[in-house]
């Protein structure tokens, strides 16, 4: 099923408000030999407000390169597991979509089958303006690597994010024990890297432990490289004394010594 053919189909559907394309397997890749070449005009879908896609990144890329969706507000994207996400057009779509400029909150959730990030306006769970992106994979180190790639490609187009939460889901939870040896600390730092405008960081207990360990490895000169606009850290179930508290305290103190850095407070 080619993205080009799909766009040709839906180009006549000027009243289309909701489009859902969900592939059964990652085998449904567009033919890269007749890969899309840049064109001057995109097909306008003037009424589309909801896009729901599940497939490989290449298909989404070829699809969104061909469409303009000025009223888009609710977007659900699910990628199958891929080692490399070659994404250029999707960030452009985010950039072009006026309603996405209101996003100031990012919620990352890890579970046993996928990792996902939801971008929304503040208090956004009740709002229809939402971008939810999920990547299907089981191992946490793969999840982190995949999401870091996608976020590093997509998020630079969003300068309004102020709040980031990273939590593990309980339904079903990721297997921290099984994955503990595979996760490199730098993977957490790579995931945090694109959130340069975030002021508030919210972490679940399990995630806080791993993020704290990753921050611990930063040299003093590099502490402002991660989340440079950070002002508050909130940790779920933070104990007054313990490894997490201690590491975050060191991180905050090191940040305090940097002239350009804002003070950071730790909250439970």
């Amino acid at each position: 099923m080619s993205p080009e053919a799909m766009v040709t189909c839906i180009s006549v559907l000027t009243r289309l408000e909701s489009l859902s394309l969900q592939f059964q397997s990652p085998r449904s890749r567009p033919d890269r030999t007749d890969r899309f070449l840049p064109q001057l005009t995109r097909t306008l879908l003037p009424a589309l407000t909801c896009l729901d896609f599940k497939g490989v990144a290449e298909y989404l890329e070829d699809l969104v390169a061909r469409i303009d969706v000025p009223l888009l507000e609710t977007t659900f994207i699910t990628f199958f597991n891929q080692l490399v996400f070659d994404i250029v057009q999707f960030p452009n779509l985010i950039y072009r979509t006026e309603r996405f400029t209101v996003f100031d909150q990012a919620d990352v959730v890890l579970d046993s089958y996928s990792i996902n990030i939801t971008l929304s306006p503040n208090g956004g769970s009740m709002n229809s303006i939402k971008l939810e992106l999920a990547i299907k994979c089981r191992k946490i180190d793969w999840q982190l690597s995949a999401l870091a790639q996608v976020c590093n490609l997509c998020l630079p187009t969003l300068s309004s994010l102020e709040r980031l939460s990273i939590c593990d889901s309980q339904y079903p939870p990721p297997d921290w024990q099984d994955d503990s040896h595979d996760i490199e600390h730098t993977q957490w730092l790579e995931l945090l890297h694109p959130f340069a405008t975030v002021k508030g960081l919210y972490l679940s207990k399990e995630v806080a432990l791993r993020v704290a360990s990753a921050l611990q490895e930063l040299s003093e000169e590099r502490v402002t490289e991660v989340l440079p606009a950070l002002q508050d850290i909130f940790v779920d179930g933070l104990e007054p004394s313990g490894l997490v508290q201690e590491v975050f305290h060191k991180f905050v103190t090191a940040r305090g010594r940097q002239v350009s850095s804002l003070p950071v407070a730790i909250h439970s």
Partner: protein
Amino acid sequence: MVSGRRQSATANRSLTLLSLRCIDPFYRQGTAGTLPDVVLLEIFDFYVEENCHADDWHALVHVCRRWRNVVFSSPRRLNLELFCTPERPVTEMLNIWPELPIYVLYDDCPEVEALEDTDNVIAALKLKGSISGISLMVDSCHGSAVWEKIAAVMQDPFPMLKYLSLRPSLDMIPVIPDSFLGGSAPRLQRLFLHDIAFPALPNLLLSATNLVDLGLQDIPHSGYIKCLLKRWSLASLC
């Protein structure tokens, strides 16, 4: 989308009530019997919209003759439909209710004697000019045979069709022939296909200019559009 329509309906409702207040400076509470038809209709509209069960309007028409008249005077606005299932034969429904658009629901499960159950659904689907909605979920030991029987009566146009959902959870991925729905669905507003190969889908979509929701789920790897794209390219050369 739905919330947008609801907001619009709520706004219209507020306007109606506002205009009532303007007309009657002593606007006050009263019994339902004192309400004008236009207000009753607003309330019924709200009731039908808030309740998702297709038969909810039945309760309204059983209250009194006046309510019945109000309901049946606005069948399109209240989206009145006769809900036909294997257990609710279309002939029975047409005997006891006024002529209304027909919504056919077949939600099969393995426990049901599926082949026998299709007779009522087939009978309903044969009333092609009256069908407004079709929702078929075939998943039983007789699945393929049931699907073939149902698909066979859907090869002609259904000119009033607004809603179509096909979910044949079979061992084999069914392929919908080019002649499905006679190749066009001009009034179709919502289309959902699940795990189906439909090579002629582009042609159908070209005719479905009123489509609002399009959902293609579990799209099989077999694919189904490329050959038609080539056909279009040739047409554009002519």
